[in-house]
Protein backbone atom coordinates (compact mmCIF):
# COMPACT_ATOMS: atom_id res chain seq x y z
CA UNK A 1 0.00 0.00 0.00
CA UNK A 2 1.85 3.05 -1.29
CA UNK A 3 1.87 6.07 0.96
CA UNK A 4 2.06 9.68 -0.12
CA UNK A 5 4.88 10.23 -2.60
CA UNK A 6 6.41 13.56 -3.51
CA UNK A 7 8.87 14.58 -6.18
CA UNK A 8 11.48 15.84 -6.43
CA UNK A 9 13.14 15.29 -3.05
CA UNK A 10 15.35 18.33 -3.33
CA UNK A 11 15.34 21.31 -5.64
CA UNK A 12 17.56 24.37 -6.02
CA UNK A 13 16.25 27.44 -7.83
CA UNK A 14 17.19 31.09 -8.14
CA UNK A 15 15.10 34.14 -7.38
CA UNK A 16 12.46 34.91 -9.98
CA UNK A 17 12.24 31.38 -11.32
CA UNK A 18 9.18 29.17 -11.28
CA UNK A 19 8.88 25.70 -9.72
CA UNK A 20 6.44 22.79 -9.86
CA UNK A 21 6.24 20.20 -7.10
CA UNK A 22 4.33 16.95 -7.47
CA UNK A 23 2.37 14.71 -5.13
CA UNK A 24 0.66 11.35 -5.42
CA UNK A 25 -1.78 10.67 -2.59
CA UNK A 26 -2.02 7.52 -0.53
CA UNK A 27 -4.04 4.82 -2.26
CA UNK A 28 -7.75 5.37 -1.63
CA UNK A 29 -7.40 9.03 -0.70
CA UNK A 30 -9.11 11.76 -2.72
CA UNK A 31 -8.10 14.97 -0.94
CA UNK A 32 -4.70 16.62 -1.15
CA UNK A 33 -3.37 19.44 1.03
CA UNK A 34 -0.12 21.35 0.69
CA UNK A 35 1.92 22.84 3.54
CA UNK A 36 5.04 24.98 3.77
CA UNK A 37 7.39 24.26 6.65
CA UNK A 38 10.15 26.78 7.28
CA UNK A 39 13.17 25.63 9.29
CA UNK A 40 12.34 25.23 12.95
CA UNK A 41 8.64 25.96 12.51
CA UNK A 42 5.43 24.04 12.20
CA UNK A 43 3.82 23.40 8.81
CA UNK A 44 1.65 26.19 7.44
CA UNK A 45 -1.39 25.39 5.34
CA UNK A 46 -1.21 26.57 1.73
CA UNK A 47 -4.34 25.07 0.19
CA UNK A 48 -6.41 21.92 -0.20
CA UNK A 49 -7.79 20.24 -3.31
CA UNK A 50 -10.83 18.03 -3.53
CA UNK A 51 -12.62 16.91 -6.70
CA UNK A 52 -10.10 18.90 -8.74
CA UNK A 53 -11.15 22.15 -7.07
CA UNK A 54 -9.28 24.33 -4.59
CA UNK A 55 -11.46 23.91 -1.53
CA UNK A 56 -9.69 26.18 0.92
CA UNK A 57 -6.67 28.42 0.92
CA UNK A 58 -4.33 29.64 3.62
CA UNK A 59 -2.63 33.00 3.85
CA UNK A 60 -0.36 32.65 0.82
CA UNK A 61 -0.06 34.99 -2.18
CA UNK A 62 -1.35 34.21 -5.65
CA UNK A 63 2.18 33.23 -6.65
CA UNK A 64 1.27 29.91 -5.08
CA UNK A 65 -1.14 27.93 -7.22
CA UNK A 66 -2.08 24.32 -7.59
CA UNK A 67 -3.92 21.71 -9.50
CA UNK A 68 -5.49 18.33 -8.87
CA UNK A 69 -5.83 15.75 -11.59
CA UNK A 70 -8.60 13.16 -12.12
CA UNK A 71 -6.37 10.49 -10.56
CA UNK A 72 -6.20 12.69 -7.40
CA UNK A 73 -2.53 13.53 -7.81
CA UNK A 74 -1.63 17.16 -7.37
CA UNK A 75 0.89 19.84 -8.30
CA UNK A 76 2.02 22.91 -6.43
CA UNK A 77 3.33 25.77 -8.56
CA UNK A 78 5.22 28.74 -7.23
CA UNK A 79 6.02 31.69 -9.53
CA UNK A 80 8.52 34.52 -9.12
CA UNK A 81 10.42 32.71 -6.39
CA UNK A 82 11.70 34.70 -3.42
CA UNK A 83 14.45 33.82 -0.98
CA UNK A 84 11.75 33.45 1.68
CA UNK A 85 10.16 30.60 -0.28
CA UNK A 86 13.00 28.33 0.81
CA UNK A 87 11.35 25.65 2.90
CA UNK A 88 10.21 22.05 3.09
CA UNK A 89 6.98 21.62 1.12
CA UNK A 90 4.78 18.86 2.46
CA UNK A 91 1.91 17.17 0.71
CA UNK A 92 -0.76 15.41 2.74
CA UNK A 93 -3.65 13.26 1.61
CA UNK A 94 -6.87 12.21 3.29
CA UNK A 95 -10.24 10.74 2.46
CA UNK A 96 -13.21 13.03 2.10
CA UNK A 97 -13.78 16.35 3.77
CA UNK A 98 -14.56 15.61 7.40
CA UNK A 99 -11.27 16.35 9.14
CA UNK A 100 -9.91 12.84 8.70
CA UNK A 101 -6.26 12.35 9.66
CA UNK A 102 -3.92 13.56 6.96
CA UNK A 103 -1.07 11.33 5.84
CA UNK A 104 2.09 13.17 4.85
CA UNK A 105 4.81 12.56 2.31
CA UNK A 106 8.52 13.07 2.96
CA UNK A 107 8.39 16.53 1.44
CA UNK A 108 10.35 18.48 -1.17
CA UNK A 109 13.20 20.59 0.15
CA UNK A 110 13.25 23.79 -1.93
CA UNK A 111 16.26 26.07 -1.72
CA UNK A 112 16.28 29.49 -3.35
CA UNK A 113 19.65 31.08 -4.12
Amino acid at each position, binding site marked *: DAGVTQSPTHLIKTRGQQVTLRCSPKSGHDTVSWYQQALG*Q*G*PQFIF*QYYEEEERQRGNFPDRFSGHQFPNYSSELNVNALLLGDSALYLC*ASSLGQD*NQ*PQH*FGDGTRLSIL
Partner: protein
Amino acid sequence: AQKVTQAQTEISVVEKEDVTLDCVYETRDTTYYLFWYKQPPSGELVFLIRRNSFDEQNEISGRYSWNFQKSTSSFNFTITASQVVDSAVYFCALSEVQSTDMRFGAGTRLTVKP
Protein backbone atom coordinates in the same frame (compact mmCIF):
# COMPACT_ATOMS: atom_id res chain seq x y z
CA ALA B 1 -9.21 32.40 14.91
CA GLN B 2 -7.60 29.10 15.70
CA LYS B 3 -4.21 28.94 17.39
CA VAL B 4 -2.01 26.21 18.84
CA THR B 5 0.74 26.89 21.35
CA GLN B 6 3.50 24.46 22.25
CA ALA B 7 5.46 26.38 24.83
CA GLN B 8 8.25 23.82 25.16
CA THR B 9 10.69 24.36 22.32
CA GLU B 10 13.08 21.60 23.31
CA ILE B 11 13.05 18.84 25.90
CA SER B 12 15.90 16.49 26.72
CA VAL B 13 15.45 13.37 28.85
CA VAL B 14 17.36 10.22 29.62
CA GLU B 15 16.05 6.92 28.36
CA LYS B 16 13.29 5.35 30.49
CA GLU B 17 12.17 8.69 31.89
CA ASP B 18 8.56 9.77 31.41
CA VAL B 19 8.02 12.99 29.49
CA THR B 20 4.97 15.18 28.87
CA LEU B 21 4.62 17.48 25.87
CA ASP B 22 2.22 20.37 26.40
CA CYS B 23 -0.30 21.72 23.91
CA VAL B 24 -2.71 24.60 24.45
CA TYR B 25 -5.19 25.65 21.80
CA GLU B 26 -7.61 28.46 21.00
CA THR B 27 -10.76 28.21 18.94
CA ARG B 28 -14.17 29.84 18.81
CA ASP B 29 -15.80 26.70 17.42
CA THR B 30 -17.53 24.21 19.67
CA THR B 31 -16.73 21.37 17.30
CA TYR B 32 -13.13 20.78 16.39
CA TYR B 33 -10.44 18.13 16.11
CA LEU B 34 -7.05 17.90 17.76
CA PHE B 35 -4.10 15.94 16.43
CA TRP B 36 -0.58 14.94 17.36
CA TYR B 37 2.07 14.22 14.75
CA LYS B 38 5.66 13.03 15.06
CA GLN B 39 8.35 14.28 12.68
CA PRO B 40 11.55 12.21 12.76
CA PRO B 41 14.72 13.53 11.07
CA SER B 42 13.58 12.03 7.75
CA GLY B 43 10.98 14.81 7.57
CA GLU B 44 7.77 12.82 7.12
CA LEU B 45 5.01 13.72 9.57
CA VAL B 46 3.64 10.59 11.21
CA PHE B 47 0.05 10.68 12.47
CA LEU B 48 -0.32 9.65 16.12
CA ILE B 49 -3.84 10.53 17.23
CA ARG B 50 -7.01 12.46 16.37
CA ARG B 51 -9.48 13.52 19.05
CA ASN B 52 -12.78 15.34 18.54
CA SER B 53 -13.97 18.04 20.90
CA PHE B 54 -16.85 15.96 22.25
CA ASP B 55 -14.66 13.12 23.44
CA GLU B 56 -12.74 14.06 26.56
CA GLN B 57 -11.75 10.53 27.46
CA ASN B 58 -8.06 10.12 27.89
CA GLU B 59 -6.45 7.64 25.54
CA ILE B 60 -3.58 5.23 25.98
CA SER B 61 -1.72 3.47 23.20
CA GLY B 62 1.21 1.45 24.45
CA ARG B 63 3.73 3.88 25.95
CA TYR B 64 1.79 6.88 24.60
CA SER B 65 -1.08 8.59 26.41
CA TRP B 66 -3.06 11.75 25.79
CA ASN B 67 -4.85 13.99 28.29
CA PHE B 68 -7.58 16.19 26.76
CA GLN B 69 -9.03 18.88 29.05
CA LYS B 70 -11.52 21.30 27.50
CA SER B 71 -11.65 23.37 30.70
CA THR B 72 -8.03 24.40 30.18
CA SER B 73 -7.98 24.03 26.36
CA SER B 74 -5.13 21.58 26.60
CA PHE B 75 -4.27 18.35 24.85
CA ASN B 76 -1.08 17.04 26.42
CA PHE B 77 0.93 14.04 25.27
CA THR B 78 2.89 11.78 27.61
CA ILE B 79 5.49 9.21 26.65
CA THR B 80 6.13 6.66 29.37
CA ALA B 81 9.53 4.98 29.67
CA SER B 82 10.98 6.99 26.78
CA GLN B 83 13.29 5.37 24.26
CA VAL B 84 15.96 6.78 21.96
CA VAL B 85 13.69 6.09 18.98
CA ASP B 86 11.20 8.59 20.43
CA SER B 87 13.61 11.40 19.56
CA ALA B 88 11.80 13.63 17.06
CA VAL B 89 9.88 16.88 16.75
CA TYR B 90 6.29 16.52 17.94
CA PHE B 91 3.51 18.73 16.62
CA CYS B 92 0.09 19.40 18.03
CA ALA B 93 -2.53 20.59 15.51
CA LEU B 94 -6.11 21.87 15.51
CA SER B 95 -8.75 21.66 12.80
CA GLU B 96 -12.14 23.32 13.10
CA VAL B 97 -15.01 21.31 11.66
CA GLN B 98 -16.01 24.06 9.22
CA SER B 99 -12.47 24.38 7.95
CA THR B 100 -9.94 22.11 6.34
CA ASP B 101 -7.12 24.35 7.52
CA MET B 102 -5.11 22.29 10.01
CA ARG B 103 -3.25 24.72 12.27
CA PHE B 104 0.01 23.40 13.71
CA GLY B 105 1.93 24.50 16.76
CA ALA B 106 5.61 25.34 16.47
CA GLY B 107 6.59 21.88 17.65
CA THR B 108 8.58 20.46 20.56
CA ARG B 109 11.92 18.83 19.82
CA LEU B 110 12.35 15.81 22.09
CA THR B 111 15.79 14.30 22.54
CA VAL B 112 16.05 11.02 24.41
CA LYS B 113 19.60 10.20 25.47
CA PRO B 114 20.77 6.64 26.11
